[in-house]
């Protein structure tokens, strides 16, 4: 790096960096600092004065059963979304590696959901499964399921997980295909010569070698389920019925914009920031490891 050829200009690099830094400071660092500051303040009911209250907002938020409930909802939602979309995508990617004809055709169709906005993905699934005229809700009702995701919390969660995983299949599929293609064919052939059958080859060779890809995807999918699914939740359930699908992000939005509880909302923001920082740190540790061991 030190031996790199460079331009000698002194002022120019600052000008080149200026636009990015200006936007970063105005729209990222300043608001983040404000959130941090606000999380230690409490406003009076009229929003006229605020005073320093230390960790009171955090204590209040963490002691709130609704918050703990929301945390639990978030864990369930993220876990199921990540696991289901990854499992389906892995199965399809392995199948796509097996076929000889039609690979391009399958891939072309498989990437469609990536282009669909999360909120619209939610609307599509709600359209199919809404209790009043959803075409696929009819057979569910005929099975005696009493399908109504707008009233039943568990069913609402199932619908959200389905829509969120559906949208993420494209992404995971492309990464698993790339991961599968990077596995040396000689290893698989050696196993085949040793008499390992297809299923055995998958579990003893392919699956362990996909571990880096899977781990990377697990982090990405968790972040996706935490943040990008806001649109799905807002379009399908708005956190309801009751608070049955109110994830952490949705709660920050609701407390801040609907209930106008600034201190609590800011404290929740700060907790979320801590979660993202932890997840990103995990992700980069892993990337570092991959660089070292190839």
């Amino acid at each position, binding site marked *: 790096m030190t031996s790199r050829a460079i331009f000698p200009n002194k002022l120019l690099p600052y000008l080149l960096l200026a*636009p990015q830094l200006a936007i970063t400071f105005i729209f990222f660092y300043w608001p983040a600092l404000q959130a941090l500051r606000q999380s230690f303040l409490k406003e009076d009911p009229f929003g006229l004065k605020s005073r320093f209250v230390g960790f009171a907002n955090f204590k209040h938020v963490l002691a709130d059963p609704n918050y703990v409930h929301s945390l639990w909802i978030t864990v369930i939602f993220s876990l199921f979304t990540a696991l289901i979309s990854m499992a389906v995508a892995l199965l399809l990617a392995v199948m796509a590696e097996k076929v000889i004809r039609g690979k391009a055709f399958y891939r072309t169709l498989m990437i*469609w959901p990536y282009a669909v906005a999360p909120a619209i993905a939610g609307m599509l699934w709600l359209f199919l499964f809404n209790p009043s005229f959803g075409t696929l809700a009819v057979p569910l009702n005929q099975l005696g399921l009493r399908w109504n995701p707008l009233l039943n919390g568990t069913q609402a969660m199932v619908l959200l997980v389905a829509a969120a995983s559906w949208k993420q299949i494209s992404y995971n599929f492309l990464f698993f295909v790339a991961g599968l293609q990077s596995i040396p064919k000689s290893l698989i052939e050696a196993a085949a010569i040793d008499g390992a059958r297809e299923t055995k080859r998958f579990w003893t060779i392919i699956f362990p070698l996909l571990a880096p890809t899977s781990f990377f995807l697990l982090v990405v999918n968790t972040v996706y389920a935490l943040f990008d699914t806001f649109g799905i939740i807002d379009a399908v359930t708005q956190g309801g019925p009751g608070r049955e699908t109110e994830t952490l992000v949705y709660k920050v939005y609701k407390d801040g914009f609907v209930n106008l509880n600034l201190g609590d909302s800011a404290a929740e923001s700060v907790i979320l920031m801590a979660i993202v920082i932890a997840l990103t740190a995990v992700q980069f540790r892993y990337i570092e490891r991959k660089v070292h061991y190839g």
Partner: protein
Amino acid sequence: MITTSITSRVIAHILLLIGILIVVFPIYYVFVASTHSLTDILRPPLPLWPGNQFLHNYYEAIFGGVAKIGGVGVGRLLWNTTVVAVCVAVGKIGISILSSYAVVFFRFPLRMTFFWLIFITLMLPVEVRILPTYKVMVELHLVDTFGGLILPLIASATATLLFRQFFMTIPPELLEAARVDGAGPARFFFDILLPLSRTNIAALFVILFIYGWTQYLWPLLVTNSNDMNTIVIGLRKMISFADADTQWHLVMVTCIFAILPPILVVVLMQRWFVKGLVESEK
């Protein structure tokens, strides 16, 4: 070469077809619904094939159904969304390529500090700082403007990282040769670096266009007037599953308009898309 048995290939095809069915069906079915009349949609089950209302519904949505989306036509929504998606993509690429250029090809005090400052924004998604960012928008009078919709979205740690990585693979001899030939920073940037980055720019553009097109939380917060809605937000406002008055056939047409452009971009630019996705994240 291991030969896969025919049975296992047939099973693979069957599973893939089921997968495709799950993946494509919701989108296909909305198209089907967009060609049926309102009464047909409200009387399940809806047929699996398109009806005969295609021209009628699309004509009404484009030319007549204006009042149904809070007084704003589909054309306006599509225009807003296209402006946002293109400007976000171009803006992100523009400012990222400039900052990576500065970080890789110049030496100056605080160089790596700046790089890390950009990098750390990865950890501050808009969702964790909703309210304070909104306040900034209000103070800068950016609510209900294209500036407000676009500017906060164009800082990009990922794009900066990608360009930096790519620039570092460019052989130093290239820069030395250019300098010997008397090229300054501008000339080197436009005549050598930009042409070399074409593939990366195309790949990033696809990803970022989709990113801009599918934004939800930010446009929801920063637009109050229906005139400035993106199509996703407009659609959200049209829909009420409890409300009997929702014009579902027009909702379906709008839905198709919201889904089709990004799908076309992804499918037609598939090579760049896959490259951009797999490489920018790694």
